[in-house]
């Protein structure tokens, strides 16, 4: 079996537009959920968002490139640039390096901001033309394609979409490709740019957005907070990483997937539990081996109570001693990028021996009987962590990582 090393990661988020800022924010328990900025009008039902702020698109990506980049592609490309630089890989060093590398990027909303701008021009402003690059900016594979173009990745490359599980599906597929020998390395992750008026109206309409802020597993939680950003990783064969003297951030050890085939929005205990169990089986882990779960933890009534049942069902009594956290309380629900941001959080947790806090919890809901790390992070050495993503549409994807 080929072991898979993670040798690079990059992040753009409400709590930092690079890994070190994100790490510091998690260690400090910084809350990135604030009222939306830079919008002419904010939907009444939206109090705070996990908005990417102070992102220097021109500095990070170059002015020339921006006309072709929707914000979702900007975030994804910037995170990929950081991850690839961290890994110290040059995909153009030899054509074979490019050919043997995959790029898989998840997104839920893709270029929704570009479409919104076009529709605003047509239907609100009465203009007759839209941005000439509307199609290549908005397409779901735009972020993936720009990453391949920027870095010369010429092997299997595509985008995946499964709403809130998109990033985990993308990361898991890349992991399977490297582990199976189909590719030697993979650039994988998720990206999303959703803090715009039209999209916030859509979430408001579904009536699942929090009245105040994101309070995962808290008795007084009133829903999720829309976030955005990107989390991208470089994976490669463990032996290759060692041979070239790369710093290994963590080992990817398992991936489990399932579909509820139930309700389009309401999660299923049985379906989600199968994905967690599949991940443990894939990684060769027993329940007692897991030291930490970065929960899906959206702070909706339905998700958190269901997820608690899932964790209880799979881990039994070990759940009493299994610290769970939802970093969505800090960076919001980044939807198609969520699993990307949260895998960075997991790796930081492994590296630092520090489980980040679930912020804004006033009292743990008795419906969520878990060891939730509340309000302040917990210093504890951990070896193995899981990251859960349970998407609308009942599509579940769970990742397992081990300390390097």
């Amino acid at each position, binding site marked *: 079996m080929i072991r898979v090393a993670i040798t690079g990661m990059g992040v753009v988020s409400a709590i930092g537009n690079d890994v070190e800022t994100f790490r510091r924010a998690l260690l400090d328990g910084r809350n990135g959920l604030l009222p939306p900025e830079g919008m002419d009008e904010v939907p009444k039902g939206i109090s705070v968002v996990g908005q990417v702020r102070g992102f220097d698109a021109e500095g990070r990506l170059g002015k020339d490139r921006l006309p072709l980049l929707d914000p979702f592609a900007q975030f994804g490309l910037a995170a990929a640039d950081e991850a690839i630089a961290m890994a110290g890989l040059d995909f153009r060093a030899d054509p074979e390096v490019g050919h043997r590398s995959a790029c898989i990027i998840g997104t839920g909303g893709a270029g929704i901001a570009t479409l919104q701008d076009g529709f605003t021009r047509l239907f609100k402003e009465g203009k007759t033309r839209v941005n000439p690059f509307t199609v290549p900016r908005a397409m779901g594979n735009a972020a993936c394609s720009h990453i391949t173009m920027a870095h010369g990745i010429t092997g299997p490359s595509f985008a995946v979409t499964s709403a809130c599980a998109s990033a985990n599906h993308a990361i898991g597929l890349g992991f399977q490709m490297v582990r199976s020998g189909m590719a030697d390395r993979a650039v994988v992750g998720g990206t999303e740019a959703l803090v715009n008026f039209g999209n916030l109206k859509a979430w408001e309409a579904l009536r699942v957005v929090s009245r105040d802020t994101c309070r995962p597993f808290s008795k007084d939680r009133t829903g999720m907070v829309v976030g955005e950003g990107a989390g991208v990783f470089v994976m490669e064969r463990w032996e290759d990483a060692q041979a070239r003297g790369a710093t290994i951030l963590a080992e990817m050890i398992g991936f489990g997937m399932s579909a509820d085939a139930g309700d389009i929005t*309401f999660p299923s205990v049985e379906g989600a539990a199968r994905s967690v169990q599949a991940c443990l089986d894939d990684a060769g882990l027993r329940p007692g081996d897991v030291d930490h779960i970065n929960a899906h933890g959206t702070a*909706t*009534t339905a998700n958190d109570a269901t997820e608690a049942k899932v964790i209880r069902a799979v881990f039994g009594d070990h759940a009493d001693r299994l610290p769970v956290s939802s970093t969505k309380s800090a960076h919001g629900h980044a939807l198609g990028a969520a699993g990307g941001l949260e895998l960075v959080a997991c790796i930081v947790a492994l590296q630092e021996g520090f489980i980040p806090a679930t912020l804004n919890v006033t009292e743990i809901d008795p419906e969520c009987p878990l060891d939730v790390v509340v309000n302040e992070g917990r210093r504890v050495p951990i070896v193995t962590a899981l990251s859960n993503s349970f998407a609308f549409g009942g599509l579940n994807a769970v990742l397992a990582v081990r300390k390097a």
Partner: protein
Amino acid sequence: MSDLEQKIFDIVVDKTEVPRERLTRNASIKDLEISSLDFVEIVFAVEEEFDIEIPYNANTLDSDFGTLGDVIDAVAAEVAKQS
């Protein structure tokens, strides 16, 4: 039965499979087995009908609206605010 009540019941019948005769002010939303997604649709239709905004959050459905009467009162309050 008021006109407003009548219109709301029409909407509930339209959006759910619940028979009209079961709809009363005292009927509990839980007992009528109206799902939270159906309720989202009902609220949307009511808001469109009366041109109002109802502060409804699916996460707190149980505590905010116990009966159809609670919905009717919330709509009446919003309609009164408008006029």
